[in-house]
């Protein structure tokens, strides 16, 4: 009896409306509480991932997540972080925790701006808020701004003994399916690549998504951003800039021509992702040309 009473009561229009409003309200409250509770860890996870990827591009962090240092012969050896973010050689591959990664990041990486003449400015000099700037132009690309973002990589030493080991350029581009975001680290001569990484991409898993795999990225160290002309010389003011992802193997396509120094093997079945990567490097690096040329000139002065 009460069963049928309940049935008839739940059939009316006003009851249905009331039920849906109540249900929506409950769901909305649950979700907004959840979203605000998890907002902080989510932002931290993203921030940590970007810091990690930048350290990987700068070859301070190995892609298999342990710190590394270059010994006197230039080989990379595993390292461990001390409390103030300084690395010390270690025998085992120790996986760092979040705090260690952030400490090392703060100690080794610092953001600057470059203008169209290639001058370096601090955020203070430019009168800008670093956090806001980094946040605002992440999607649209820093290379499109009059003041472009660049990160200095400092050496693994304390205070005033630090010198600049290289620079990290944020790279934006378009892959096959969606935008791709990454970093490219270059040596102080503005030409030789230290390493690269991609921190956000939605390419085809197993094919284009290999751009985020350590194995494919390991081709980049030592490549040249400025393409050499066939006679082996580089005219820094006019040379095409970028790293070309060829279709197939560099060895077969370009053999040992000077162009091969600025090219990497493509991924089978991911030609369009490869083209996207090529275009991304070309567009971004061309915008940074004045700065890279300036680096090269200053470097040439010191080494002469």
């Amino acid at each position, binding site marked *: 009896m009460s069963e049928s009473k*309940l049935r008839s009561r*739940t*059939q009316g229009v006003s*009851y*249905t409306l009331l*039920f*849906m409003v109540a*249900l*929506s309200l409950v*769901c909305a409250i*649950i*979700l907004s509480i*959840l*979203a605000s509770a*998890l907002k902080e*860890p*989510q932002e931290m*996870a*993203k921030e*940590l*991932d970007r810091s990690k990827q930048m350290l990987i591009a700068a070859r301070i962090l190995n892609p298999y997540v342990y710190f590394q240092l270059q010994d006197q012969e230039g080989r990379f050896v595993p390292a461990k972080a001390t409390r103030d973010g300084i690395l010390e050689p270690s025998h085992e591959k120790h996986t760092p925790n979040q705090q260690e990664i952030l400490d090392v990041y703060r100690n080794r990486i610092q953001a600057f701006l470059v203008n169209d003449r290639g001058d370096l400015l601090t955020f203070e000099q430019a009168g800008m808020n670093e956090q806001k700037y980094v946040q605002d132009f992440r999607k649209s690309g820093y290379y499109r701004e009059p003041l472009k973002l660049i990160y200095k990589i400092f050496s693994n030493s304390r205070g005033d003994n630090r010198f600049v080991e290289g620079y990290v350029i944020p790279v934006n581009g378009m892959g096959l399916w969606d935008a791709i975001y990454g970093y490219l680290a270059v040596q102080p001569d503005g030409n030789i690549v230290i390493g690269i990484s991609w921190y*956000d991409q*939605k390419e*085809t*898993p*197993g*094919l284009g998504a290999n751009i985020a795999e350590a194995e494919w990225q390991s081709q980049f160290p030592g490549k040249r951003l400025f393409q050499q002309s066939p006679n082996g010389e580089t005219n820094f003011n006019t040379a095409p800039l970028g790293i070309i992802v060829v279709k197939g193997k560099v060895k077969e396509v370009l053999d040992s021509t000077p162009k091969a120094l600025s090219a990497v093997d493509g991924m*089978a*079945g991911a030609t369009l992702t490869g083209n996207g990567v090529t275009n991304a490097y070309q567009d971004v690096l061309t915008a940074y040309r004045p700065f890279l040329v300036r680096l090269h000139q200053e470097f040439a002065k010191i080494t002469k």
Partner: protein
Amino acid sequence: MTASKPPLSTFLTSQLWSGNQVLIAVLGICSALGVTNRLSVAITMGLSVCFVTAFSSFFVSLLRKITPDSVRMITQLAIISVFVIIIDQFLQAYFFSISKVLSVFVGLIITNCIVMGRTEGMAKNVEPLPAFLDGLGAGMGYAIVLFIVAFIRELFGFGQLFGYQIIPLSWYATSVHPDGYDNFVLMVSPPAAFFIIGGLIYLSKKLQKADS
């Protein structure tokens, strides 16, 4: 009536094999193709679906007497969405690298036919506890199939399991030794899962026929 009532546990166990949602009902195929090229990803997805089916079945059953008939599907969808968003947000906060790979597939659990199939087909007709077990079983059945498919795909597509190299690197073809082993490239792409699941469906039909 009470004499023929099956024990509670059959709600769970029937979903694992004889009523497996992927192999028998052929539901949830889309995500099974998409997320099975790595074991770690497949397991995360399997656990997420377990969580969502179990809890949405539970709550749909809890509300079954006061849910108006005309809006029951919308109600189910709203409940399912809540749990899917919980899982998605949680993964983004604490398992960032896996959430990067799963990306859209977690959100698509909402439209996974298994979840709605269980809430509409079972949960709205039974008590909350059996509904919970039924949902959990359906999710586990799905997770098991995902695990088998991902095992085969990762082993032959990458030569690895859980990201560790299983097939020795020395077997691989190099320029010096060109007729060595090569990874099976098809395994990496979603169509491979189509063939594997097809094979599994055939096998399960054969075995279940033999059983009865």
